[in-house]
């Protein structure tokens, strides 16, 4: 992250404030990217499997997954809160009010997006490549790595959609993270806090940083997949 950019948006913040801001931006990225990586590891193979396999109830599964793309973050936050709370089933892990809890909540939020979008991509690819792959002797499951790699450019878009949702949401992280200064305070929870303090310019500046980060990441991914797609056909 370019510090010049930050200070531009930070309206000439003092050094500790700038360090604080960078810490918040860093935590936000770490939480969201970790959740995204987990969602990719879980969601891409799952989406691919649903995309190529045929089983009874498959349509129902697809409808449910598509619907889960719209999971309200606060509901996910609440469920994760109750699960991770000391009085909840996973309370012994002591994860409530930690970044790990936020990762869990965001992963749950974006897995359905990754599954649904990769399912569509892989299903189309399977239609195009399926006979060739089966001719080579690959069973459905064995074809999954090939299909994921063949769909890499479209799947990158699915992951970007997941990143967008996770980085933009505040409803779940503020509940399970607790918005603890320096520990679980992310960009979106800071925006919420500064808004409630009535410091609207600072909240707006943070919003600007968030939007810029999202645009930069999307532009970067778009450029990479464009160049890649041109080279791979």
């Amino acid at each position, binding site marked *: 992250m370019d510090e010049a950019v930050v200070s531009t948006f930070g309206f000439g913040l003092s050094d500790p404030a700038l360090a604080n801001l960078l810490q918040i931006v860093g935590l936000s990225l770490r939480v969201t990217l970790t959740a995204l990586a987990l969602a990719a590891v879980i969601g891409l193979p799952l989406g691919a499997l649903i995309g190529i396999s045929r089983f009874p109830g498959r349509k129902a599964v697809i409808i449910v997954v598509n619907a889960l793309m719209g999971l309200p973050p606060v509901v996910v936050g609440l469920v994760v809160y109750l699960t991770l709370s000391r009085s909840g089933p996973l309370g012994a892990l002591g994860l409530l009010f930690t970044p790990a809890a936020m990762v869990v909540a965001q992963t749950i939020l974006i897995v359905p997006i990754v599954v649904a979008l990769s399912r569509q991509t892989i299903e189309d690819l399977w239609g195009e490549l399926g006979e060739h792959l089966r001719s080579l002797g690959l069973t459905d499951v064995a074809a999954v790595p090939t299909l994921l790699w063949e769909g890499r450019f479209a799947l990158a878009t699915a992951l970007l959609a997941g990143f967008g949702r996770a980085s933009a949401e505040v409803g779940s992280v503020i509940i399970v993270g607790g918005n603890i200064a320096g520990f679980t305070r992310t960009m979106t929870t800071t925006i919420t*806090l500064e808004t409630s303090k009535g*410091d609207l310019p600072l909240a707006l500046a943070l919003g600007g940083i968030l939007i810029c980060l999202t645009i930069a990441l999307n532009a970067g991914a778009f450029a990479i997949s464009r160049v890649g797609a041109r080279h791979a056909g």
Partner: protein
Amino acid sequence: MPQIFRRTFIAGLATLALGGMATAQTAAPTDTSIVVASTTSTQDSGLFDHLLPIFTAKTGIAVKVVAQGTGQALDTGRRGDADVVFVHAKAAEEKFLGEGFSKVRKPVMYNDFVLIGPKADPAGVAGTKDIAAALGAIVAKKAPFVSRGDRSGTHMAELALWKTAGVDLEKARGEWYREIGQGMGAALNTASAMNAYVLADRGTWLNFKNRGDLRISVEGDKRLFNQYGVMVVNPDKFPHVKAKEAQIFVDWLTGPDGQKAIADYKIGGEQLFFPNADQPGA
């Protein structure tokens, strides 16, 4: 080569996921930190930003503050998700004690509530000292009033004041009474946008920047007194509670160093909180 690239790509994803989880967990020195469930007013007023660095520098114990409404903060304690609760609603705190979720409640400090209102002052209460009369005037004029409506300490205090003023809220309730179910800052933002009256704690008000046409209408009434108390969550109920560190925090807060630090916190030369740990009945 792309074969290798693909393997690296997948391995990288997995590593990122696992590594991320690991760092996410180890990011804080969990053994020397406690979780304090407190209220939005202590956070939004900036008090914790002033107190905690002093405490941590002295004891090495990091304090993680989860700022919620008083009711929610007490519930967080009831679930065992905090080591300390630090709130301002004496009756609710005594209920918490009675249920055995804590063994001792100690008074820490007080500040006061103020009635905030628009410059136009439709209820004609600006500058008066009698909060009961002022609330009566607001009802009579049906002047817009924003209520927290979130079971917070401020909300409970507001409800008690309506009772003191002899207003039956259930009967008087109408378009003018707007319950928003949010924190102090959100309530002030709403009041600012609607030019409504709102009951706020002085600390949050002093630290609040988006005032618009709002100003203090009524202050100084003894009934606006706002007492804060602190409790260690009962380790007999929740064995994981860091009772030792939590007790160190409570002892510091109610001891001479903490009390002085509280008194030292000022915004624009004005003291926000008044330490009173030495008044056992507070």
